[in-house]
């Protein structure tokens, strides 16, 4: 039966995806794209009749995916994005305006009084096609994030600057290489022991003709007085504007603060996560993962994402545009 075949095929693909997640080693951009693609497949192939059913299925699979690799937060973020897409498409099909449902204004909180009794049980025929189209738009957005961030590089780097970075971030690499096409500047890379990803970053940058220097982590504060800007990537951007980034980033941020050097974080929007710093922020998730640092928002000057530059104090607002508050807990 074709229906059953589709279901087993879908089940197999989900299992394959979970196995890949557990293995790890993929960049977060790739993970985000493959998560979104898988969610599109679930929407297309799974059996569901109303938006509520679909949301339940996606939530269930989302919980399994985040459990497979808790440190890879982009998976959960993509699930939340898709859930928001489903809510929006459902609201549009029903004909109610998006604005009224989205805004969590004070007025709404006071006057609604126990509303949001939306159960998503109505069936709409074009809903599936609309959701799939919206997910396609999301995938296009994901594919362009690195380029979008790199395009902003010339607005932030002047000539003869000394820029410091830590470890290896593909976003920062593209950012710096884009600026290097038109400006000459120096880059100092902290190697980020014990895995020393900084070495790879340095060889990649120097191959493009950028003056690069590799320093051990212990020399970060010593050379900071000659650094004009610190540009870093991150693993996750937290709801309060803080970071969960590779270990050593907190020291780097403190050193930058001491010398009043601006700290710029290049992070695409899919890294924005509704988590808050808690006990689990600082643990080693499994033996192959480096320990992460929590960097508080006071130490960060600017976030550069694919939608432009933002101060850390604005991150909470971006959060409400990307995810629905009820999806914060999957």
């Amino acid at each position, binding site marked *: 039966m074709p229906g059953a075949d589709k279901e087993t095929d879908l089940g197999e693909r989900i299992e394959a995806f979970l196995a890949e997640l557990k293995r790890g080693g993929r960049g977060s951009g790739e993970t985000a794209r493959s998560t979104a693609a898988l969610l599109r497949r679930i929407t297309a192939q799974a059996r569901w009749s109303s938006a509520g059913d679909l949301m339940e299925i996606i939530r269930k699979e989302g919980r399994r995916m985040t459990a497979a690799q808790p440190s890879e937060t982009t998976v959960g973020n993509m699930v939340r994005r898709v859930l928001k897409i489903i809510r929006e498409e459902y609201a549009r099909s029903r004909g109610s305006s998006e604005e009224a449902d989205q805004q969590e204004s004070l007025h709404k909180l006071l006057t609604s009084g126990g509303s949001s009794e939306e159960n998503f049980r109505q069936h709409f025929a074009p809903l599936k096609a609309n959701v799939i189209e919206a997910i396609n738009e999301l995938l296009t957005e994901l594919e362009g994030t690195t380029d979008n961030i790199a395009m902003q590089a010339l607005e932030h780097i002047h000539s003869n600057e000394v820029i410091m970075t830590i470890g290896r971030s593909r976003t920062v690499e593209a950012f710096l290489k884009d600026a290097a096409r038109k400006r000459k500047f120096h880059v100092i890379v902290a190697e980020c022991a014990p895995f020393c990803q900084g070495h790879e970053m*340095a060889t990649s940058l120097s191959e493009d003709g950028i003056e690069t220097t590799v320093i051990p982590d*212990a020399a970060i504060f010593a050379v900071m007085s000659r650094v004009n800007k610190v540009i870093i990537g991150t693993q996750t951007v937290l709801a309060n504007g803080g970071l969960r980034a590779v270990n050593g980033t907190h020291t780097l941020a*403190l050193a930058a603060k001491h010398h009043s050097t601006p700290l710029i974080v290049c992070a695409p929007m899919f890294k924005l996560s509704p988590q808050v710093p808690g006990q689990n922020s600082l643990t080693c998730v499994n033996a192959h993962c480096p320990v992460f640092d929590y960097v508080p928002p006071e130490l960060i000057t600017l976030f550069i994402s694919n939608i432009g530059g933002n101060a850390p104090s604005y991150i909470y607002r971006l959060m409400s545009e990307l995810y629905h508050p009820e999806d914060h807990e999957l």
Partner: protein
Amino acid sequence: SHCSHIPLRSDYGYKVSLFSHLHQYSRKAPLTQQISIPATVIHPSIVRLGLQYSQGIVAGSNARSVALLHAFKQVIQDYSTPPNEELPRDLVNKLKPYISFLNQCRPLSASMGNAIKYIKKEISNIPSQCKEEEAKKKLLLCIDNYVNEKITLAAKAISKCAIDKISDGDVILVYGCSSLVNHILCEAFEKQRKFRVIVVDSRPRLEGREALRRLVKRGIRCTYVLISAVSYILPEVSKVFLGAHALLANGYVMSRVGTSQIALVAKAYNVPVLVCCETYKFCERVQTDSFVSNELDDPDDLIVTREGKTQLADWQSVKSLGLLNLVYDVTPPDFVDLVITELGMIPCTSVPVVLRVKNVDQ
């Protein structure tokens, strides 16, 4: 008298532009190939000492000073005044090329500089009518006294002060391998203080492993982390003990690179930072950054193989790639809460006071 010329050792590899005024030597190429050592000019124990310095066999401020003084004792013992020369002037002149040679092997440390100043002064103060044997005996005794007073007894006095600062249940953080801090911790453990130690280490020297070995051998409970994890581990720490390479006259602490970083993060977490330093390391120099006066170590030390790949193996062939292996950095005095010396516990800013008192004594 002929002027003995020590040929200059050549630099190795591309130097980062900010540090192009400093020397950068390679450890792999044997020293004897780089400097032709005329055997008639340099005493063999000095040659051996120079080789030990350049290969890193003798490392650490105290160890280097003690080794230097022992080598000088050999030199003085084997010295004989040539005819028509006076011992004070001639011996000082003989030491000049030795010191220049040792500087080529590895730049002199502040403690070594102070020791050399002391010896030169003692030699110059030998009265001219003193017979050679007596003069040599006097000088050897001076050197022994210096080592005993300034290093051995000072360590005992500092331990006594520092142990008062260690309470039961403390978690103490140390960085790298400081002979003085290790001594303090071992003494405190002997005196039955209950504490545990977190040893912070950093690439490429990984000196913390030696400290770890020494402490664990005594039975002290230790944890080992790399410097990038220091902001993760600091909330558990109650005190930070740091060693110093030199204390500068403007209150800055010159120590192994990474020390200022640890002091910075400790300050952010409000953990007290105590620096332990003997007074013979106090220096009249002033410095505000780690650039003007520093030491560059062999850049090849940064190369490492991870997961079968050596990323930086051909770094020399890439024109725009440089490796920077700094040895020292300076910690501003506002990061340091207390300096423990054999004269007592002083704030960082009192270093010029101690220097003035020492000069008045002499």
